[in-house]
């Protein structure tokens, strides 16, 4: 970015001829740069801002803080001469910072190792490495059905009142670097409440991971516009940790819905032509500028994985925010109100959920050779069971054919025993074995997605299903929440690893 910022000379201008919402209009500014960082002093208060329209005559500045009480005539604008940059470095680990990178933890401002433009530069697609390293999150609905890999961006589509943030906390707590590589978590709180922040921080600290984390907060009470900066400031640090310091970085952003609302608010203030539901037409590009910063780079050690949380307004997946997010990210984990009400945690609805990079992260040497078939088969029977359940609601269970009845029974068990795991951690072997046991309750004519070859391996290696069923009682259940039913039928067993080894 802006390589001619070599000797920035701050210039001071007095008087703003017009002000509207967060926008200030100045005349006579010489050589204002697009994106230039400015300070705005008015009535004893200093605010930060940015040039969004650099003209010969009129320069438009967007102020990042609340403009309440700002007096245009008495305002002084200091043009910094450079575009926005932030301090990055390993030193930031363990810190809690604001959306613009200022300390919130009472400690001095970090010096860091470098100054980076917060807008970043696009990664050359030809330099990317295809992500393919399996991340074991310990959550069956993810590891088994929607596998996460390093360098992926996999959002959680939550709904009002659904535990999206809890699921993210769960992943942060349980995700493990398979070979003990350096690992860091960056949490970006955007527009969420202090209570939600606290919830996450408690879990985060409890897990002992906080010294390997950086927290950026731009909460509901902070100025709208700072929300637009927070994810980018955090990602500048994440890129440094991943691609310069060689760490595996997991970035959790909660909540992108508030980010998008801030974007809409600012666009309206700029009097831009609105797109769908009032959101600006460039929202796709803008979101891509955040999500596309995930990845793995050829010849560099680290990786940058993103788990943004999107609260779907009114649980509507076609709303522009989840919709555009889904077009950019590599899949989505969709939470379901129905499952949540049934006490299933995490309430992941696996049918609309998807991990586009799953195939790269599973298979021989990673999870199990038959993982793909196994998942396809679980999907197929579960989808049939869900359809049958809907049909049964109309015509009654007796109106169903036998295979439909079996599928419906399967769907119930699958939700309760496989998806629902409370706060227990299941390794991939346990997840796969649990899936097999549910499948093996069905006759093989219902399981045509499993190839003969896989059955042959399973039959020789696994013994017969009834014998193993007897071990279900040994399941070690660790339900830390103590919530009723959440981990009830949980079967987190170490399944001798028979199916997991290739």
């Amino acid at each position: 970015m802006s390589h001619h910022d070599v000797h920035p000379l701050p210039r001071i201008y007095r008087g703003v001829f017009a002000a509207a919402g967060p926008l200030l209009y100045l005349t006579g500014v010489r050589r204002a740069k697009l994106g230039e960082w400015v300070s705005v002093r008015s009535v004893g208060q200093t605010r930060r801002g940015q040039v969004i329209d650099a003209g010969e005559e009129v320069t438009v500045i967007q102020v990042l803080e609340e403009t309440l009480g700002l007096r245009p005539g008495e305002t002084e604008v200091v043009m910094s001469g450079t575009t926005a940059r932030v301090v990055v470095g390993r030193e930031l680990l363990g810190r809690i910072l604001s959306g613009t990178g200022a300390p919130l933890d009472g400690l001095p401002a970090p010096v860091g190792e470098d100054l980076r433009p917060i807008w970043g530069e696009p990664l050359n697609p030809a330099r990317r490495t295809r992500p393919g390293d399996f991340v074991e999150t310990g959550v069956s609905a993810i590891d088994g059905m929607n596998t996460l890999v390093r360098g992926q961006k996999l959002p959680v589509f939550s709904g009002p009142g659904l535990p999206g943030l809890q699921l993210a906390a769960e992943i942060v707590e349980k995700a493990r670097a398979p070979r003990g590589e350096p690992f860091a978590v960056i949490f970006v709180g955007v527009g969420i409440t202090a209570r939600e922040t606290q919830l996450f921080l408690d879990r985060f600290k409890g897990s002992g991971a906080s010294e390997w984390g950086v927290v950026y907060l731009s909460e509901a009470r902070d100025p709208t516009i700072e929300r637009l900066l927070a994810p980018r400031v955090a990602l500048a640090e994440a890129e440094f940790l991943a691609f310069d310091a060689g760490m595996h970085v997991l970035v959790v952003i909660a909540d992108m819905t508030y980010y998008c609302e801030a974007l809409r608010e600012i666009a309206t203030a700029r009097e831009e032509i609105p797109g769908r539901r009032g959101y600006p037409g460039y929202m796709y590009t803008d979101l891509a500028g955040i999500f596309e910063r995930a990845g793995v780079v050829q010849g560099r050690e680290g990786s940058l994985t993103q788990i943004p949380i999107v609260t779907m307004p009114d649980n509507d997946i076609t709303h522009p925010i989840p919709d555009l997010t889904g077009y950019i990210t590599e899949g989505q984990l969709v939470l379901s109100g129905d499952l949540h009400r049934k006490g299933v945690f995490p309430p992941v609805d696996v049918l609309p959920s998807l991990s586009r990079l799953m195939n790269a992260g599973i298979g021989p040497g990673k999870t199990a050779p038959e993982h793909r078939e196994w998942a396809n088969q679980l999907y197929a029977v579960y989808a049939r069971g869900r359809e049958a359940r809907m049909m049964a609601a109309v015509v009654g269970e007796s109106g169903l054919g036998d295979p439909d009845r079996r599928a419906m029974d399967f769907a119930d068990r699958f939700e309760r025993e496989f998806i629902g795991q409370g706060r227990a951690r299941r390794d991939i072997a346990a997840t796969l074995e649990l899936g097999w046991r549910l499948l093996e309750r069905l006759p093989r004519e219902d399981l045509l997605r499993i190839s003969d070859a896989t059955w042959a391996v399973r039959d020789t290696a696994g013994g017969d299903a009834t014998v193993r069923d007897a071990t279900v009682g040994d399941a070690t259940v660790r339900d830390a929440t103590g919530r009723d039913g959440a981990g009830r039928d949980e079967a987190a067993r170490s399944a001798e690893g028979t199916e997991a080894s290739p």
Partner: protein
Amino acid sequence: MSRDRDTAADAASPADAVPARGAAATKASAPSEPPPATSIAPPPATSAACAARLIRITGSLAVARPLREAALYELARVGEQGLLGEVIRLDGDVGTIQVYEDTSGLAAGEPVALTGSALTAALGPGLLGSIVDGVGRPLSRLAQESGDFLRAGLTAPTLDPSASWVFSPGVAPGDLVEGGDVLGEVEERSGFTHRILIPPDVGGRIAEISEGEVSADAVVAVLEDGTPLYLGHAWPVRQPRPVSRRLPSDRPFVTGQRVFDFLFPVAEGGTVAVPGGFGTGKTVIEQTLAKYAAADVVVYVGCGERGNEMAEVLNEFPSLIDPRTGLSIMDRTILVVNTSNMPVAAREASVYLGMTYAEYYRDMGYGVALMADSLSRWAEALRELSSRLQEMPGEEGYPTYLGNRMGAFYERAGRVIAAGRPERTGAVTFIGAISPPGGDFSEPVTQAALRVIGGLWALDAGLAHQRQFPAVDWEVSYSLYMDALAPWFVERCGADWPELRAAVLELLQRDRELRDIAGLVGVEALQDTDRVVLDVAALVRETLLGQSAYDPNDAVSPLEKTKALAALSLSLHRTILRLLEEGAAYEELDIAAARHALFSLRNSGSADVEARALNVERLIAALGTKEPEGEGAEVAALEEAATPESPTPESLAPESLAPESPTPEDGEAEV
């Protein structure tokens, strides 16, 4: 190299020889001619333009003055960094430039230089196997220069100037040549002949011509009037390349995907839109077609999509072998990549660049498949620029000329006799993904496409959630090429092909109706003949229409296998109906073995198709003739006979595709 090429192009294409068509025609604001073609890396500005300065920068648009000398769609260098941009509006001496790179840091007062040329594609040997951005900069070589992240203001010629080629002349001194003629050829990739074309607007008598090894930017021939000819030439991307004549669409573009080849075939030179909400598998379809469809050359435009997907293509394509040529898939592919986080203006240009590459290989006489993923991102880029120009918006904020622009673009596809001698037939088949917001096809981009396409492959989120892939909604999708292609299919696949297709569609339609009824009264309340329809239709959906892009045996389906699956499912249906008529009870018919055998047929490589199909046939025939008790053992024996290999994971090794090609999973395992 750029200097040489510029001279070449300037001499080769005088401004008045380039008709003002294409992009300029849809803009009414100024009647300027597009400037002549030159290379992608323009020379320093002329003195007249040096005085121009920026007066305003907002987003990706820069406004400069004075630009009285500029032509619409002329390329400009903006600011001290020399960012690449295109003049898109002229108003008096004020010009608006759409900048292809990140504009942050630009300030009013910085210089603007006109280049005297429009945005052009550099065409010549060396394009195959390369990966370029939306304006033709080679991304691999940019990385050598600037590292892993793309800085603004970088330049590099599309074609590597340090390459050299072995040139075999096709004409001799004294021969009279004209635009489009084949001057000679080079072997671009092992086994792939790149015909060196005379630029469309050049002609004359050959004075001298070289032979043997020449460097990429050398003069290989000179006309009597002194015009030098090079291995390559430049062409403005927004202008269709001229052809001798267009041909009717009477042969299919065989995709290897059953649901497309069987139900909704596209003609070679045809156009298809693939709309679908997120997660419905647009990208997988585009990539699968890029890998397995019967094309000589594939141009893949990643327009505003994911960077990791491009990494996947780059990782996977080089190791996949095209069974028809034995060459790596990458050797027939050109990737144009402008991911969603790269500048928006270049995204707008990227589809035109891809189309120009496709037309160029078409002119050599090849069948080219152009894939664009996704046209919605292109339309959004158009909307964003239009909005910044403060044009009056049309529906959903898209500019009112969206439909025209899309129509003009789709019309560049087609099967043609190329201009020039010797006669060559080539085709550009265009398959464009569309990402409708919320999966709602009533939105402007899908609707604009529907007006001009010949085929619609509509993807459905419901099917995708059930993991029915490709998630093609057979009730909404259509092909307007069916009648034109029927003779080809009859000749190639047998006279019963159209009937089979009609019967399968009828079965699916009946299934739809029955499922609605079953939803009200329950399956148990249906008659046996209707329950048969539900069961057979489910089998058709899974075995015929469903196809796994990740199963090495089934990722590509030869037409024989497609036909066998369709014919056998229908035969099973007929047999059951006959048995019911003869008094059998549906519950007592055990069709599990036949179903299983159909799945085995689906999962088998092309070498096994005949044996497995025969096996299914026997099992269907056995349905009526045998006692249920005796069936099991006999079926097992038949199964055994038809499937000689042992059922181990090794039997899943790639067969049909190519022996050397690892599957995505296999490839990954080695990493």
